């Protein structure tokens, strides 16, 4: 029988007489009410953010946006069963209703002996250099000024440069974790990020796309001009591409291409949740070789050069520098409290996720150690190969198989960059490729959640498209 769709849970009248709580009071209320309503342990994770953004589209400023957002995630344990609910209007009545829902979910959830909420440990020192007090005075007008400067710099670099899209974003956020086991942490973070995507256009040619991104925590380190020039230089250099026949040779990845092709496969494989589910290629590889000895990788949320930096994780566990791969040998996985309980380990401070989800194991900043070779030396040593700046395709993070198309690539022969290339298919396996890593550059680039050098791999298969 059909009926009107009534949703009693959505009672809008309640919004009209509410007094909103501060983020800290909202977290405290949630935990207190959870325990009062039958939870043996409870945790609240709250975020307040103020974000301002200018969108660039088709060589013009398109739109200005501004958001003020709160969000609160409430996790409860009833016995060993977990429940989770999230609410974004920090009013007492709504928070209590969310707590009651979380407890109801816990009561219908199967118990799991590995569920727990972390206890307060030693005092956590807050990171310095992730909050810039000058960011408070960074106004929407400054966003417009930065977006315009980036746009004009790229366009004036060469009149063939065409910008498809881009943005400049500034954000201030506060995050708080409070639980029934003594954890009570809060900190402020300032974030700036900007990007450009587009191509070079001539009368008879449209170049490959390029995408450049920049980010920082500090107003003084905002540098849209360098990003715009790198972008413009890249797309102009993509003009006049030539076809290259199929071959097997070397692949030099830019830091951005590394994120598209390699980073996710490594992040997936070092995630203890995937290891425990037997969905990681690194499962049996602790203290064994997973790459050539040129590769060293850390997960490090305490590195303030990248935007993934903060003092504590989604559960209030202190962030730390986690050694993952040392000279090609796998040294450890990343854990949150749940997965560390399963393996009898300590959490590595890698509980991540927004207040809309319960905590889940996540990487923070992936840092690949710089090598000893200059970038120009890595290029000069290539007998026959491709420099790859963008990869469009798929990577299976479980088995490492990848296939896709080189976008924004150059053909290199006998150490010389010969020409930009038209689309070339590449396919292979990331985990095999890591063993064939033959060079890592001294130069590194900070991206939003990583700091990466240029990396060179041998014995990669390149296939020309049919023509």
């Amino acid at each position: 029988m059909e009926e009107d769709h009534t949703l009693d849970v959505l009672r809008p009248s309640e919004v009209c007489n509410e007094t909103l709580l501060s983020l800290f009071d909202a977290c405290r209320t949630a935990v207190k009410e959870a325990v009062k309503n039958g939870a043996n342990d409870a945790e609240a994770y709250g975020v307040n953010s103020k974000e301002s953004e200018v969108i660039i589209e088709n060589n013009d400023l398109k739109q200005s946006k501004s958001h003020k957002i709160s969000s609160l995630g409430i996790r409860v344990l009833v016995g060993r069963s977990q429940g989770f609910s999230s609410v974004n209007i920090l009013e007492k009545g709504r928070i209590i209703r969310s707590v009651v829902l979380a407890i109801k979910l816990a009561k219908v959830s199967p118990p799991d002996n590995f569920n727990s909420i972390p206890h307060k440990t030693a005092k956590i020192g807050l990171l310095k250099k992730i909050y810039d007090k000058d960011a408070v005075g960074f106004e929407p007008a400054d966003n417009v000024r930065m977006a315009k400067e980036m746009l004009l710099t790229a366009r004036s670099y060469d009149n063939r440069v065409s910008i498809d899209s881009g943005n400049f974003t500034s954000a201030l956020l506060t995050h708080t974790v409070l639980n029934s086991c003594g954890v009570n942490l809060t900190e402020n973070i300032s974030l700036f990020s900007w990007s450009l995507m587009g191509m070079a256009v001539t009368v008879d040619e449209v170049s490959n796309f390029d995408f450049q991104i920049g980010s920082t925590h500090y107003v003084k380190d905002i540098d849209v001009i360098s990003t715009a020039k790198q972008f413009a230089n890249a797309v102009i250099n993509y003009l006049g591409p030539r076809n290259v026949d199929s071959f097997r040779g070397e692949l030099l990845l830019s830091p951005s291409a590394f994120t598209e092709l390699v980073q996710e496969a490594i992040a997936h494989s070092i995630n203890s949740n995937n290891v425990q589910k037997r969905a990681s290629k690194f499962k049996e590889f602790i203290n064994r070789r997973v790459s050539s000895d040129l590769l060293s990788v850390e997960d490090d949320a305490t590195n303030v050069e990248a935007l993934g930096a903060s003092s504590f994780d989604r559960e209030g566990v202190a962030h730390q520098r986690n050694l993952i791969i040392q000279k090609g040998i796998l040294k450890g996985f990343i854990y949150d409290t749940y997965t560390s309980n399963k393996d009898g380990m300590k959490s590595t401070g890698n509980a991540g996720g927004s207040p809309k989800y319960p905590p889940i194991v996540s990487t923070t900043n992936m840092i690949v150690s710089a090598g000893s070779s200059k970038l120009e030396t890595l290029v000069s040593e290539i007998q026959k190969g491709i420099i790859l700046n963008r990869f469009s395709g798929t990577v299976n993070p479980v088995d490492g198989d990848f296939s896709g198309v080189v976008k924004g690539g150059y053909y290199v022969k006998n150490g010389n960059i010969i020409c930009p290339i038209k689309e070339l298919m590449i396919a292979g396996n990331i985990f095999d490729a890591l063993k064939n890593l033959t060079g890592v550059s001294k130069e590194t680039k900070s991206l939003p959640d990583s700091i990466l050098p240029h990396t060179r791999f041998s014995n990669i298969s390149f296939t020309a498209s049919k023509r």
Partner: protein
Amino acid sequence: MKPGDEKPIIDRLYSLVSKSSGASYAETRYHCRIINEVNFSNGEIELMRNVSNSGCGIRVLIDGCWGFTSTSNISTDALKNSLNEAISIAKLLSGNKKKKVQGLAEVNQMARGLMQAKVKGNLENIDIEQKVKVTKDTERAARNYSEKIKSASCVYREILDHKIIVNTDGAEVQLYDSKPEFVVTAIAAEGNETATISEGIGVTGGWNDLFAKHAPLDYAILASEKAVNLLEANHVSGESTTIILDPGMVGLIAHEAIGHMVEADFVLSGSVAKDKLGQHVASELVTLTDSGESKTSPNGAGTIAVDDEGVGVEPVVIIENGYLKSFLHNRESAFVFDTRPAGNARAYEYDDDPLIRMRNTFLEPKRDTIDDMLRETKHGYLLKGARNGQADANGEFMFAFQEAYLIEKGEIKELLKGASVSGGAFDVLRSVDMVGKDFAYDMGTGYCGKIQPMKVDGGGPHIRCTATVGGLQ
């Protein structure tokens, strides 16, 4: 819902738009969304959550420049501040933007009143215990189907929405709807062979609408049976050949390869469809429509009554008997193209601004039967089970499918492993020579990604055409 409950919010939104001094247009949208999700994987609870996300998005147009703000604090003062901020940031752009918005197209009628979707089995009346039990039992049934099933998961997710939209051009509407979805994934393995199959459904409607076609456990059997059968299947030979596509594959092509190309913002950015209006772009058997109503079959997951600019939905016939007839518009692009919008401006949550999006996108059914198509195919493949894929602005697409059946001399011969199908969207539609009289929506479990996610649907009848089959998955 209690009548009258909404009045204080409507009054507040009204008061806001009336204070939007200096704006040629102002729009306020209150949106409360509840998400409930249960996910079992290999006998363990993977995720269980309840999320309530609500707030107000405010958009103003001043001197041809948009300003958009959102806030989760919907007190009178916070909303007033948010409106002032929207006005202020729009004004900031006005001295810096070169190509200003020239105007917003007229609308046949701005939506007013209360619109509630009719549902069978109100989701609020189905207790969480039942949702957990169904999800858990279905995952277990998929895993227990065969020893060859090594892994299984089952996800139930429901999205409950309440919106109130008030704008300066006369919209004053409130909307309630719900969109549940249910997906089972089974992974079979034997020796070095593995096969993964997902089966599921997503609808606009209630619990009984979700399970009107199949009972929950049927999805477990369907997924596991197919995964086990695929273990022994051979690979497809790569070739350009005759293919018969199931409704899900037809929906994927209609949405990804054609639909995005005719979204007016992509058209203005130079998509391959930009100079093709009025041209013959497909076989005369092809009529392709995007509709906010659930045409032909009920409960399409992309069903909406009103878009987020307050425009009541009307169907858009994109291709009619092979001729490209219309693009998809918001009010801004409709003004540029001197046409009327039909309700394609959609925002995902309150803090998203409306973008040009599809709804239910489908090929209209014609006269043929699947038996006719098979009988008249000397050599080719029947492709089933759409997976995701990619389509470029030039219309070139590559989509993966779960299963292929080899057809020889009018008969199905052999089940083959899934691979990918590729081609030019218009080339493939020109090659359509048979269109079935059956119909189904089959994209309701997925989300379209275009800056924001969005619930859409797609489908059609079985069709026969020519494309290239093969390649890596």
